[in-house]
């Protein structure tokens, strides 16, 4: 015992070494491997293309094999036999991950490029009355569809948000017996095909003759699609609130309701707002359920309770498959507007969740 106590102790902190997370890094030899092994294949691949080979063929049959070969050689040179397998693994991982990047960039770029060409003040403010697929882009627009989308999504949100958050409250703040059933069903709903949600509302209200195509039916059809997102994100953010806070409130003589309203909910606020934003982002581009419930319209309709309403997705849908260039341009314009709306919601949600994590980090 004494000997241990007598040992000299050096309490000064040592700077965290760069390789404190060795499993995360591409080691130096890995970097060399990749640098070396990526210039040569690139050059041969380009050469093959100059000699007249198609890009895809050059990529798959010249670049990739050369890359693999050099990777294996370099890997073996640096770390022996296991270097070979590692090189192959890393090359494939990067190749596949890059293909996702390429696909995503292709989608976003084509929408931005073509959509922005269609955009003008008149395009986002005017409606589609007297416009056909051949009408010049200087006339008409999707103002009515923007308004329609906002109205329909607003009504869905008004219904779904309280429902979803209350469900999340049930899952996190109570000891209710049906919690696991509810959780499973919510999970299952998140995989509900959107067209089925539309058919359901159609069957319930339109096929039974209660109403014609109408805005509110579209809002209802979006509810089962939005509900799982709102519930899941809200549940996660409520779970992040430490149990000690709830106990602190209850120990002060609080009712369960007051503890939730004054302590738990404020602590989870940014997460709950994120839940709403992601929920809206989930439904804002939904097409199929709206086609079978509100259909499309050319005029500006501000009344969710009377007649068809145009929305951005259905506007896009009606122009997408046309043979006329202007019609296709209108479709790209609509896609761009949808993308902007999704991006706004998405960025807002990320900023909020960043704030949340910053606060947590500050507390430590």
């Amino acid at each position: 015992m004494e000997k241990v106590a007598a040992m000299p102790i050096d309490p000064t902190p040592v700077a965290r070494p760069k390789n404190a997370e060795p499993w995360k890094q591409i080691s130096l030899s890995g970097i060399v491997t990749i640098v070396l092994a990526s210039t040569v294949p690139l050059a041969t691949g380009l050469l093959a293309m100059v000699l007249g080979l198609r890009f895809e063929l050059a990529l798959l049959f010249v670049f990739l094999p050369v890359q693999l070969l050099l990777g294996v050689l370099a890997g073996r040179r640096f770390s022996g036999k296991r270097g070979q397998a590692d090189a192959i693994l890393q090359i494939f991982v990067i190749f596949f991950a890059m293909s996702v990047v390429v696909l995503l960039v292709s989608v976003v770029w084509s929408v931005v490029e073509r959509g922005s060409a269609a955009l003008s003040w008149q395009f986002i403010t005017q409606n589609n009355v007297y416009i056909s697929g051949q009408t010049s882009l200087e006339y008409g627009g999707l103002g009515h569809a923007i308004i329609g989308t906002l109205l329909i999504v607003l009504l869905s949100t008004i219904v779904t948000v309280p429902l979803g958050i209350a469900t999340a409250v049930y899952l996190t703040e109570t000891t209710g017996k049906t919690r696991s059933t509810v959780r499973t069903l919510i999970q299952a709903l998140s995989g509900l095909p959107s067209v089925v949600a539309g058919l359901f509302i159609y069957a319930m209200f339109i096929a039974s003759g209660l109403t014609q195509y109408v805005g509110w039916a579209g809002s209802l059809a979006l509810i089962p699609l939005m509900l799982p997102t709102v519930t899941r994100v809200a549940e996660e953010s409520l779970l992040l609130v430490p149990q000690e806070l709830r106990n602190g409130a209850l120990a002060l003589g609080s009712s369960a309701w007051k503890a939730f309203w004054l302590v738990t909910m404020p602590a989870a606020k940014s997460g709950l707002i994120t839940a709403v934003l992601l929920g809206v982002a989930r439904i804002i581009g939904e097409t199929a359920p709206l086609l079978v419930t509100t259909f499309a319209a050319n005029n500006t309709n501000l009344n969710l309770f009377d007649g068809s309403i145009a929305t951005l997705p259905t506007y896009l849908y009606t122009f997408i498959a046309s043979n006329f260039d202007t019609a296709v341009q209108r479709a790209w314009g609509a896609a761009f507007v949808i993308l902007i709306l999704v991006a706004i919601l998405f960025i807002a949600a990320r900023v909020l969740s960043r704030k949340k994590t910053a606060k947590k980090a500050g507390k430590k």
Partner: protein
Amino acid sequence: MTQLSAQDINVWFGQRHVLKDVNLLFPEREVTALIGPSGCGKSTFIRTLNRMHELIPSAGLGGKVLLDGVDIYEPSVDPVGVRLRVGMVFQKPNPFPTMSIKDNVLSGLKLASRKHADPNGLVETSLRRASMWNEVKDRLGDPALSLSGGQQQRLCIARSLAMDPDVLLMDEPCSALDPGSTRRIEETILELKEEMTIVIVTHNMQQAQRVSSQTAFFLAEDGNPGQVVEFGSTDQVFNQPVDLRTNDYVNGHFG
């Protein structure tokens, strides 16, 4: 006149028997210390005294807790009312992060839907009683999380005091704090005992001797439910323990 006593308290979590036949009497305006190795059920026991115990889904209970002769577990008793009279301070400081210092002190009023004639006065007296008024009087609007750990814990004490409880339960209130803050909280306890009954769980033998007038020693022997091995005046438990295991524990031979 407030008297708190535990009669034949038994606790289960699921099927696991965690506490067995605990009988303790907490005289008015006295400090009772609960000591014992960790895992023997001290926190569990103290939570039965203001019905925080039942918030754990698998919790089970046998026995009675009498507050002024009334069993607080009677179906007709509102747990919210019990917790208003029996306040609690937790091991880890838990000020409400979204509220300012002042709002934290007044949070109990809001949470319990109570009015107070002079909220500002109440903030001052409560913070004074928790001996932290001078440190924070100029920054009452600051967020509670801007305080140090020791200050946060005293804020939590002030928060409980603002509700003017008859009994204050403290579960290792100093275990996460530095010696300076610990000393100030001990001073606070000694002042508070003039006005209320206090039950404190502590791992610190010196602290138990400094603040308490009676001590209960809890012990759970390998796999058996926790029990009170020895209960008596602090002086007797520490200096002339009857039970050998108490002797070993207070002299630091195990636990």
